[in-house]
């Protein structure tokens, strides 16, 4: 059976055989950096195209279909255009912060890639506080957004950045509580442990209704955290032109755009890991034959399938729901999501203590 684990171990063995340990480690770091950068570039191209196609079909349109077969190379052409474009810096802008902001946002995305298990035993860094690391690092992206808004010397940018700050700080809470429910059920913060705990069934099935509620809360909260519609107040096109990235053009704009899609991918990957068992195949109780057939599908395919399903769900939200007002946004978080997630966490704790889950 095809396995990424075999490739990584053989590469590591070869490197340690050829070079001294320090060199080998450095080489591994370079390989990981190259792989993650190319994953980012690829994801940017694929997700932007997917978004445009999904949007078009939901709005009874066709979407891009001119460049390449079925419009496949549309995003490649767009990227080429963005590379060619001049990156303007507005007059009186804080040049240093202005240039730094897109890289901060991208860097947060790269850091979040570390603890994600892409396939069986295929993980950059299996840190034992993986979930804590993710929730800590993901809130850093607001710094990049505020930096961009402040440095642009533009009232729309600043307003968008401020909104984004309020939004991310509030929705971090319910996302954290939704993640905590799974931590309570598993009893571990390590992502590989969480995946292992779902060997005989994913948490969304094993955890009864509370897990389902936690999943819904998680999806709502991360939609808000990634600044996507219906929570895209930070870049509300109709009111703030483009919010914090109004003044950005060329490749700096492309980095912001890419970061948005990378963040979507990462939150969906984490959602898939926590609620849908990560790379774990679908196993149903004692159906031995069925479980065996499911085992034959490579674990990376399972992981990517689940992640892309969640990404599709978030895109579906974006193209169905209207945008919220700021007061509605904060009402939703503080009056509905937070009390419900607190109550839900209590329920899950009772279930975990009494051992009611399967």
């Amino acid at each position, binding site marked *: 059976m095809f396995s990424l684990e075999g490739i990584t171990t053989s590469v590591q063995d070869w490197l340690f055989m050829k070079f001294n340990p320090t060199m080998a480690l450095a080489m591994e770091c370079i390989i990981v950096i190259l792989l993650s950068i190319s994953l980012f570039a690829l994801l940017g191209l694929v997700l932007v195209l997917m978004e445009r196609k999904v949007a078009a*079909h939901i709005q*009874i349109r066709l979407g891009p279909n001119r460049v390449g077969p079925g419009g496949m190379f549309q995003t490649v052409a767009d990227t080429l255009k963005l590379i060619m474009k001049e990156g303007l810096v507005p007059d009186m802008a804080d040049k240093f912060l202005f240039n730094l902001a897109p890289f901060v946002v991208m860097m947060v995305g790269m850091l979040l890639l570390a603890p994600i298990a892409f396939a069986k035993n295929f993980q950059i860094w299996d840190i034992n506080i993986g979930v804590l690391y993710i929730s800590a690092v993901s809130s850093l992206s607001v710094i990049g957004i505020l930096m961009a808004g402040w440095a642009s010397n533009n009232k729309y940018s600043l307003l968008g950045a401020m909104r984004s700050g309020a939004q991310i700080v509030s929705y971090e809470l319910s996302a954290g509580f939704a993640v905590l429910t799974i931590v309570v059920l598993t009893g571990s913060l390590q992502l590989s442990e969480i995946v292992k705990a779902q060997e005989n069934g994913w948490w969304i099935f094993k955890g009864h209704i509370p897990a389902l509620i936690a999943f819904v809360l998680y999806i709502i909260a991360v939609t808000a955290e990634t600044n996507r519609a219906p929570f895209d107040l930070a870049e509300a096109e109709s009111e703030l032109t483009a919010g914090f990235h109004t003044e950005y053009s060329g490749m700096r704009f492309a980095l912001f755009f890419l970061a948005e899609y990378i963040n979507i991918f990462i939150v969906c990957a984490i959602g898939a890991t926590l609620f849908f068992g990560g790379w774990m195949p679908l196993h149903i109780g004692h159906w031995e034959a069925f479980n065996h057939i499911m085992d034959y599908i490579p674990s990376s395919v399972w992981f990517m399938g689940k992640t892309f399903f969640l990404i599709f769900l978030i895109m*579906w*939200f974006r193209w*169905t*729901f209207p945008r919220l007002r700021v007061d509605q946004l904060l009402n939703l978080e503080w009056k*509905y999501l937070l009390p419900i997630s607190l109550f839900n966490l209590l329920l899950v704790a009772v279930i975990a203590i009494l051992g009611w889950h399967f």
Partner: protein
Amino acid sequence: MFLKEYISDVVNGVSSLLKGMRKTGYYFTHPKEIITEQYPDNRATLLLSERFKGEVVMPHDANNEHTCTGCTACELACPNGTIKVVTKFEVSPEGKKKKAIDTLVYRLELCTMCNLCIVACPSDAIKMVPNFEHSVFDRTKLTKVLNQPGSKIREGIE
């Protein structure tokens, strides 16, 4: 009761959101609903709405006859001087003079497709047709004479 209201609020909200998602999900999974016309490719089979207003024309029948009496109602109705009616007097066999049109000049480049001339016409001599391929290199080509050469008014139209 507060708690009951709160729960019903949440249930109503979620169910209305799900209703919306069902509709968009239906559109996503049914490509036959797509209404995009791939214009230059499907020029032969292009579907345009009956009500699409693209150009004013004067329909003529098989005997090269129209129903325009030259009353200039369209010219008066037009808000930006698109239509110019040039009238002449025809002498009937009995020796009676009758007003008729010489030319009905229509300047497409000024027309806003407001449909007021069509509404104003008492004898339905002009109508809107869904033509939209109007681009030309020379703007004088946009000034059109609507009545065909040698055409005359149909019998019995006053």
